[in-house]
């Protein structure tokens, strides 16, 4: 099966009867400013055909790119609650409602279960469009429930991070999602179930400082912004310019915090390889297996 067909199938499955992106629509690249058609872009794994810039895509698009075809979304019934009665320039419930309408998403993370080359995988993928991919109680709970699901069925977990950090409107509740997700991830580690963390552009703040950096394998798409503090804050703090490649995926590989960078074209295959290599049938030591 060719990549192209798989991609198309995935998208069709993902969207069902929903409207497709209008064909013939133009896309202007953010990086090189060249224009390509939406069709060309899609056929190129949502990368600019001219400069390979990886366009920010949604959770659904990742599911389409990675899964064999069909997949089932999980924990769709969770919604943010305004427990603090938080109002900045607008009330938090209004912000949520407007965001839901605009993005047609219910939260900054969607979880789905499917197969990659016939091996099961749970993917929890973030959407930057939803309040900057911010981590609130729903994101934390979806990760927590995903881990429970992976533990119960002994399925590997992939979290695709794309987050500006904590959701300020949930204040300390948001902060505690860092502790919550990290604590739950220890259970996966103890059970010997692999957790893969894919960091995409951008992954900063609280998400990075918890689940995103805790993968058994940490990897990223090319040229993604990855860090704890944002570059603007750092520049203001140290009062000098930052190196050009600062906080890119490649920078993080160089400094030892990522295992590798993967082009989106090879993403599915790389995940498939990992699932094969980590497959319990393939990795249990021969001596141990004989003792069973």
């Amino acid at each position, binding site marked *: 099966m060719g990549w192209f067909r798989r991609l198309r199938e995935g*998208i069709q499955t*993902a*969207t069902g009867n*929903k409207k*497709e*992106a209008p064909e013939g*629509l133009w*896309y202007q690249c*953010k990086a090189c400013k060249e224009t390509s058609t939406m069709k060309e*872009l899609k056929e190129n794994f949502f990368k600019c055909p001219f400069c390979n810039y990886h366009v*920010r*895509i*949604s959770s*659904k698009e990742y599911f389409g790119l990675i899964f064999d075809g069909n997949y089932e*979304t999980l924990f769709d*019934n*969770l919604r*943010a*609650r305004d*427990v*603090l009665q*938080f109002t*900045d*320039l607008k009330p938090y419930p209004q912000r949520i409602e407007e965001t839901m309408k605009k993005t*047609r998403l219910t939260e900054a993370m969607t979880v789905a279960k499917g197969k990659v080359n016939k091996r099961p995988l749970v993917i929890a993928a973030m*959407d930057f*469009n939803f309040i900057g991919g911010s981590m*609130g*109680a729903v994101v*934390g*709970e979806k990760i*927590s429930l995903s881990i429970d699901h992976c533990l119960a069925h002994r399925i590997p977990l992939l979290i695709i991070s794309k987050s500006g950090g904590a959701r*300020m409107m949930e*204040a*300390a*509740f948001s902060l*505690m*999602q*860092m*502790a*919550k997700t*990290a*604590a739950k991830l*220890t259970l996966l580690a103890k059970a010997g179930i692999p957790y893969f963390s894919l960091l995409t552009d951008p992954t900063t703040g*609280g998400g990075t*400082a*918890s*689940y995103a*950096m805790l993968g058994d394998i940490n990897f990223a798409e090319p040229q993604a912004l990855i*860090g*704890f*503090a*944002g570059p603007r*804050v*750092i520049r203001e*703090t140290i009062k000098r310019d930052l190196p050009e490649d*600062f906080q890119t995926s490649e920078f993080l590989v160089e*400094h*030892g*915090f990522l295992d590798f960078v993967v082009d989106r074209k090879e993403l599915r295959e790389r995940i498939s390889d990992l699932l094969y290599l980590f497959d319990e049938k393939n990795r249990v030591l021969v001596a141990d297996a004989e003792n069973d």
Partner: protein
Amino acid sequence: MVFLDFEQPLESLYEQLDKIRQVGEEGEIDVSVMIKELETKIKNKRKELYNNLSGWQKVQISRHPERPYTLYYIRQMSRKFVELHGDRYVKDDKAIVGGLANLDGQTVMLIGHQKGVNTKMRQFRNFGMANPDGYRKALRLMKMAERFQMPVVTLIDTPGAYPGLEAEERGQAEAIARNLFEMAQLRVPIICIVIGEGASGGALGIGVGDRVYMLEYTWYSVISPESCSSILWHSWDYKEQAAEALKLTADDMHAFGLIDGIIKEPVGGAHSNPEEMAKLLKRQIKKAITELSEMTPEDRIEARINKYAGMGVYDVVSETATDDNNNVPSDEK
């Protein structure tokens, strides 16, 4: 004495007191009655002010320049203290201190953010903003405590993890994440107390515990009121509103179930009576150690993880979402 803006009424009373004392020293008039009266007035005024503090005022108290810091508490609480340095990888971070202390016979690993007591020391301590090396030092000490079955006590007081170039190069995010992960599974009791500022991941990086307490006039949240104002209000001028909106006080945090208790401060705040504050702190730590010692490591870890897993409030809707987002690349709007 340093007075905060809302303490102005106190400052003028103290000025009056000084003047009367001067008159008294000149010896012409007996001022003892007047002094007594003024002292009562000051006491009452302080009580009045401290009974009606706003979120922002508590933030101010938590940053009071005369407020006691970690090393002060350690010296007050422990007759012996051996400070341990370095993360064994890169360097010794001065913004986090730690070492072996002993609370009336019980050896503990005591770790905390450390702010400087004067201009020079504030620089030296990097204003209590740790680099990855600080979090890794803290983790090294915690793992040592685990090997030797000593409880871990952490004192939290930071305006945030340091947002610097080297901090990013050395993996600030990874260092904090690793601590959250390891602290969740540490086999010895962990007791964490916010003694000043509890800002975001920089605080939480040594803040995952079986018992988490806040001193009465401290704050703990995902962001400082100033930064919150700057991001959400697009201006630095809404820090008071932001402080209220974030619900960052000890009372709020306790009401939300995000901390396990509040340790009362002396009237006028910890800085008005540091020795008393250290006594109250020590009493609470000892009490928590006694309680936690009765549990097995496995039970403690399970309870700890369940506590954090239960944090977060959300709604559950009955219908499942069927909405799919369209296929237009979701490049940022």
